[in-house]
């Protein structure tokens, strides 16, 4: 434990050189996990933070209330890519404000409620595959399957007209885009989404419907449990979080399975193990390129792995590194869909644990089940290193994924 010397060492420049493949975290993350698990890093703008890479430490940063998201969402703190979408929404709040909003929506995403949606999702998967099979080959899986599936599901759950998907998807893409490029473009897209939901809420106020936005409107109008701005921002957060991550994760899961064909074969032979495989893929897959989670700020001095982090310091939990920590599971850099379940941090932990985790799990399970059973000879047309990802997105987002069957 040589960590006491860390303070004297110069901060490590961040972000790190990109990983050589999309299947593993940046080598620097693994190196630091081994040698300097709690280390100061410096962003290009000169801001500094403590990067935390070991499983136990990352888990503590996510759960321990002394690590504040609200303090990290204030100006002057480093940003790992979500900008306003994290700072001005439920993602940038602490209890009790966070709890007040989360309580209002948690019931719609519980395991029991999600299970009730499974037949509907399975039917959507079937219909999308029916249509895909009539397309000319090669066909784009993004446009025909991985994007429309979660978009349809979250639109139905929220009560957003799915016909609007081309409009809001463009804004959603920008909101998750490269913050270093043009912040005004992102602010404009965020503003457009706010305006879209202000209008939608106004329309839905005059109608009755069995959906989450209507329930939130009642919570505001009848019980004054959230402000109009909170209502609008909660809706836009749920819409973005509800489809961008799942859509891209479907693609990333497939890329991983096709990279390790023996794992794909095993899953085809034993489709009943798909839920277990989804957990292993959640642990293994590298949805984000940087590996950095949303920053927290210490509300008091905290010691992690023998390193004293002062009060008021930014701390960045590296979930993807934590999920590859040998302390979590032996041989962590191998994808093994037959592994026993691990307490991975693919959905985070603590108060900001992914609200839609159960829904995402179920959609991913049904997506894999449908594709493996109905398109057993599906092939990826383009080699992985020739695939094109959208620039600077927080999550790895494919422009297209051409397939044959």
């Amino acid at each position, binding site marked *: 434990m040589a960590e006491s010397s860390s303070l004297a060492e110069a901060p490590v420049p961040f972000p790190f050189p990109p990983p050589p493949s999309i299947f593993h975290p940046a080598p620097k993350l693994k190196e630091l996990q081994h040698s300097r698990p709690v280390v100061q890093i410096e962003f290009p703008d000169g801001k500094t933070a403590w990067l935390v890479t070991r499983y136990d430490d990352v888990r503590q940063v996510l759960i321990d209330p002394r690590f504040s998201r609200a303090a990290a969402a204030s100006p002057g703190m480093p940003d790992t890519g979500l900008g306003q979408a994290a700072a001005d929404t439920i993602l940038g709040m602490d209890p009790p404000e966070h*709890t007040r909003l989360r309580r209002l929506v948690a019931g719609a995403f519980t395991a029991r409620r999600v299970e009730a949606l499974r037949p509907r999702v399975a039917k959507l998967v079937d219909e999308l595959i029916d249509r895909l099979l009539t397309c000319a080959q090669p066909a784009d899986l993004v446009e025909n399957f991985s994007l429309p599936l979660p978009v349809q599901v979250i639109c139905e759950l929220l009560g957003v007209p799915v016909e609007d998907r081309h409009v809001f998807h463009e804004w959603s893409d920008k909101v998750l885009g490269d913050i270093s490029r043009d912040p005004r473009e992102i602010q404009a897209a965020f503003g457009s989404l706010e305006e879209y939901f202000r209008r939608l809420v106004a329309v839905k106020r005059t109608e009755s419907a069995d959906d989450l936005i209507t329930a939130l409107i009642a919570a505001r109008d009848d019980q004054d449990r959230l402000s109009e701005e909170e209502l609008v921002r909660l809706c836009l957060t749920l819409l973005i979080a509800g489809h961008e991550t799942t859509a891209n994760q479907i693609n990333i899961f497939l890329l991983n399975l096709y990279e390790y064909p023996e794992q794909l074969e095993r899953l085809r032979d034993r489709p009943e193990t798909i839920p277990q495989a989804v957990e292993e893929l959640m642990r293994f897959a590298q949805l984000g390129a940087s590996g950095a989670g949303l920053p927290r700020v210490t509300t008091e001095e905290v010691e992690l792995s023998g390193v004293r982090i002062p009060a008021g310091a930014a701390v960045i939990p590296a979930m993807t590194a934590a999920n590859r920590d040998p302390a979590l599971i032996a041989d962590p850099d191998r994808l093994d869909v037959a592994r026993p379940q691990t307490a991975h941090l693919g959905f985070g932990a*603590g108060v900001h*644990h992914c609200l839609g985790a159960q829904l995402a799990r179920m959609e991913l399970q049904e997506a894999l089940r449908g594709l493996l059973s109905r398109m057993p000879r599906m092939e990826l047309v383009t080699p992985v290193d020739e695939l094109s990802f959208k620039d600077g997105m927080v999550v790895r987002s494919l422009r297209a994924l051409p397939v044959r069957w």
Partner: protein
Amino acid sequence: MATWRVTVSDECIAAACCLGIAPKRFALGDDGRSHPTSDLIEADDAVLDAMISCPMEAIGVHDAQTGEPIER
């Protein structure tokens, strides 16, 4: 003041929302799951917040004397 009985079922997946919302009332055990720090507690709204926020609906809160579930 009423006394409540707090339970966490085997459904727990250690998302640990409860530990963030009511850190005095829940802790992770050696089995990796959340457990109440004390089974019997004085009425505490933070525990209800945790119950409602639990993605697995794994947290139970009951009146210790009557056994009735505590309403949200």
